[in-house]
């Protein structure tokens, strides 16, 4: 598709950026990213995070960027702060954008991140200035149609600030490619919460990288609930740079039919006494599958650090499949605790019989067991109304999920 290919060329990216009136530094960054995109091949399955999600046959250039794409947002920033599109933020908070955009996730790192850096439009900037807290969560709704979209979100939380973001994603049944980048800068003693409600249409393929740089005493929590999409690959990385920094990465996915979920996590413990927890749980029906690859790396500087990785997968149908690959790299002896656990298995037969002996039919019993299984994640997400809505969506999905 020659017409699509043209969009990804350096000249086209630069021209589009000029047309949007972007500053020179950003146009240069776009050009660099477009060159990196052209020069970089698709990640091969020989790379561990890509072992079970083979994208070598995926042609990004066959998906024309949706020029009209724009996220919808609600939320009010505290005085001096910002919650709006990156495009608008470039005008009002240019120093913040210039300092941090592309500083956490570089546009030259890989095929998908390069595509994003060269092609993102509108984007989202959430900026919490020093000592300030947002009153209510900022909500960002990414609603895709067809072709390709490149959601770009920059979250900057200055020292001792607080912000919570709810990202909802949806799309139509048309083929859609999503290459997202979420950058989080959490400075000393800040608190950042991000809840991602993934409900893409049945033909959407998403590849998103989220990376957080977490400063001294700062706390970052990321929760994902993935119900929709054909392929959903989320790479979530916590760089625990500051002393006493903490992070929690949690995810829940319910798969059915041909759905394919791939969670990659990195917990890089650098600061002394930093702490990081990962908990990913999936329930898989139909011929769906889930992949988990998690790396915990404890650097020599991370004295007294602790980290944990947990991945639990329930197979609800004999055709479903899950692969778990948790890895620890510990470079110091001075860790408090560093653990990982992974399980793949069917529902507990005794628990099923117990519930059935109370009058619940097979489907009701299974639904109750699965929602119970997810409780450890769901109960920890502080978004009361949304969690209930998600539980309802989850039950609805299980009500028709393929069990054979």
């Amino acid at each position, binding site marked *: 598709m020659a017409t699509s290919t043209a969009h990804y060329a350096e000249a086209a990216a630069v021209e589009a950026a000029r047309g949007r009136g972007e500053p020179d530094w950003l146009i240069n960054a776009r050009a660099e990213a477009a060159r990196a995109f052209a020069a970089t091949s698709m990640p091969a399955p020989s790379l561990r995070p890509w072992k079970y999600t083979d994208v070598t046959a995926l042609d990004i250039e066959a998906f024309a960027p949706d020029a009209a794409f724009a996220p919808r947002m609600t939320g009010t920033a505290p005085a001096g702060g910002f919650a709006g599109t990156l495009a608008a933020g470039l005008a009002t908070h240019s120093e913040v954008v210039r300092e941090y955009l592309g500083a956490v996730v570089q546009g030259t790192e890989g095929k998908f991140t390069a595509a994003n850096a060269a092609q993102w439009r509108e984007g989202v900037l959430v900026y919490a200035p020093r000592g300030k807290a947002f009153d209510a969560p900022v909500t960002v709704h990414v609603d895709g149609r067809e072709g390709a979209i490149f959601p770009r979100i920059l979250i900057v939380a200055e020292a001792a600030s607080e912000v919570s973001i709810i990202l909802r994603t949806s799309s139509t049944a048309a083929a859609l490619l999503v290459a997202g980048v979420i950058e989080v800068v959490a400075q000393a003693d800040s608190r950042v919460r991000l809840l991602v409600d993934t409900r893409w249409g049945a033909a959407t393929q998403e590849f998103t990288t989220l990376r957080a740089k977490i400063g001294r005493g700062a706390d970052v929590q990321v929760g994902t609930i993935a119900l929709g999409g054909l392929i959903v690959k989320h790479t979530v990385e916590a760089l625990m740079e500051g002393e006493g920094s903490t992070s929690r990465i949690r995810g829940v996915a319910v798969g059915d039919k041909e759905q394919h979920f791939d969670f990659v996590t990195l917990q890089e413990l650098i600061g002394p006494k930093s702490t990081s927890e990962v908990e990913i749980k999936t329930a898989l029906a139909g011929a769906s599958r889930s992949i988990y690859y998690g790396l915990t790396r404890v650097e020599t500087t991370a004295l007294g650090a602790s980290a944990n990785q947990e991945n639990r997968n329930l197979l609800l149908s004999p055709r479903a499949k899950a692969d778990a690959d948790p890895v620890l790299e510990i470079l110091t002896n001075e860790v408090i605790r560093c653990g990982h656990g992974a399980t793949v298995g069917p529902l507990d037969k005794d628990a099923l*019989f*117990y519930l059935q*002996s*109370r*009058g619940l039919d097979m489907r009701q019993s299974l639904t109750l067991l699965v929602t119970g299984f997810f409780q450890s994640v769901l109960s920890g997400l502080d978004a009361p109304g949304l969690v209930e809505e998600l539980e309802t969506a989850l039950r609805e999905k299980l009500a028709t999920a393929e069990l054979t």
Partner: protein
Amino acid sequence: MTQPILEVRDLKVSITEKPDIQIVKGIDLTIRPGEIHALMGPNGSGKSTLASTIAGSPTYKVDSGSILFRGEDVTAATADARARMGIFLSFQYPTPIPGVTMVNLMRESLKARRGAEVPAREFLAELRATLAKLKMSEDMARRYVNDGFSGGEKKRAEILQMGLLKPDLAILDETDSGLDVDALRTVSEGVNALRTSDMGVLIITHYERILNYIEPDFVHILVGGRIVTSGGFDLAKRVEHEGYDPILKELGIASAETPVAEGAAR
């Protein structure tokens, strides 16, 4: 005569995954409305297997014979269908279900049993009344099902569910084991308070204690997958004082120690 609540006819049961191992080897048992039956027998004799089979556990397979509930053949019915009809099993080892609260389960199961929504207010009122009858606190209802419960708490939680679901047939599989003296009295009095004249009760136990509170009309002794003798309350007392051997000797059966899982015996 009134129609029996439960009729078990020449029931033979094996393990679904090991069909050559037959555990229950021909049992007949009839329980009429208002009757209390006690089932005793050495460890491994097949008591829980019989109980689970009556409740419809897929772990066990009925080789032959039948189970009738209020005259209806339920041998092939699913466990949940039987429960909705009014069969309740209080488990010997209740299964923990992390993440699911007792309240949540009880609300769902009451809805299933009644075949209609139960308004929240009505449910709460019934729950509170049942908790009070069993001298139980509301905290229990907010906890995850059997998760981290002590042995005694598990048994109380089973009876709480029985109280809410108001079954026509209650099978209490060693509900007395794990209960302290006071809890045993409370739970037994609770069962008596929850009983109605049309209900049938099957109490599986190793001890006379619970039967002093819930006095049985019949006592059956199960050995090696067969009911070898039946009698009144006296039989339970005799077991308690003498053990099984003298009774078996009188019947001309070698010993209670005879292993049950001896392979295909059809």
